[in-house]
């Protein structure tokens, strides 16, 4: 069968976006097989109805929207593995001891980061942000990105993964403090003086 030219076009376009989609799927799912599945299903869904996006310049936006739905489906199907996997020694106590004295005061006062709007939108910053997120233990990273990338509410995450609110809040709390620490070390505390 000779494919129509416009069909070939979209296949090439989709292939070009695949690595990008895979990067976010991996970051969210922390499992290469699941990530491959989610991205494949996204591309299949896109191929099944290419007419549902009109403007090719917005292809990626459209694909990311589909991917997010596929990823949520997958997390839902795999919730046992996603939720029951407890992170061995996730370092919550160590981080607390690093930040605070026994009496609840800071070990050292938090630094002034300023309000660096410009640099918060640079590719270099996003790379550091993603690297820090990747360093979170898998289960913690998943629930954190369900909040921050999939934009689910805490209630929705508890429901999807059958987690107790307490369990979820502990994970999110640790994730946020770790990310703060990681960005302090690898970006804010370590950059050339702000202009």
């Amino acid at each position, binding site marked *: 069968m000779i494919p129509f030219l416009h069909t070939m076009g979209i296949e090439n376009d989709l292939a070009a976006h695949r690595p990008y989609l895979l990067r976010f799927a991996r970051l969210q799912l922390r499992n290469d097989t699941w990530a491959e599945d989610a991205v494949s299903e996204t591309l299949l869904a896109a191929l099944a109805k290419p007419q549902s996006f009109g403007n090719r310049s917005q292809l990626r936006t459209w694909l990311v929207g589909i991917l997010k739905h596929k990823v949520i489906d997958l997390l839902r199907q795999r919730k046992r593995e996603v939720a029951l996997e407890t992170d061995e020694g996730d370092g919550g106590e160590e981080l607390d001891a690093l930040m605070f004295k026994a*009496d609840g005061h800071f070990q050292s006062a938090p630094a002034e*980061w300023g309000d660096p709007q410009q640099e918060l939108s640079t590719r270099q910053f996003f790379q550091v942000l993603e690297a820090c997120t990747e360093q979170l233990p898998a289960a913690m990273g998943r629930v954190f990105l369900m909040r921050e990338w999939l934009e689910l509410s805490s209630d929705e995450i508890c429901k999807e993964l059958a987690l107790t609110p307490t369990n979820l809040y502990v994970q*999110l709390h640790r994730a946020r403090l770790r990310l703060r620490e990681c960005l302090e070390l690898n970006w804010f505390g370590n950059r050339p003086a702000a202009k």
Partner: protein
Amino acid sequence: MTMLRRTCKEATALMVAREDRALPWVERLALRLHLAACQACPRMERQLLTLRKAFANWRHYSDQDSA
């Protein structure tokens, strides 16, 4: 007033928690009192606000064609 007294560690925990859930009014009040009296915690509050903006930017970036 001791029921409203919070350490920096507790105040930080509240500031982190409010990214993901609504705080009860007593905790909101206790946090405001602490922030008004503490030198260090307002900085932590600004850092957490910066983190919030950073993730909003990143989310936007992940959704855009231009990236």
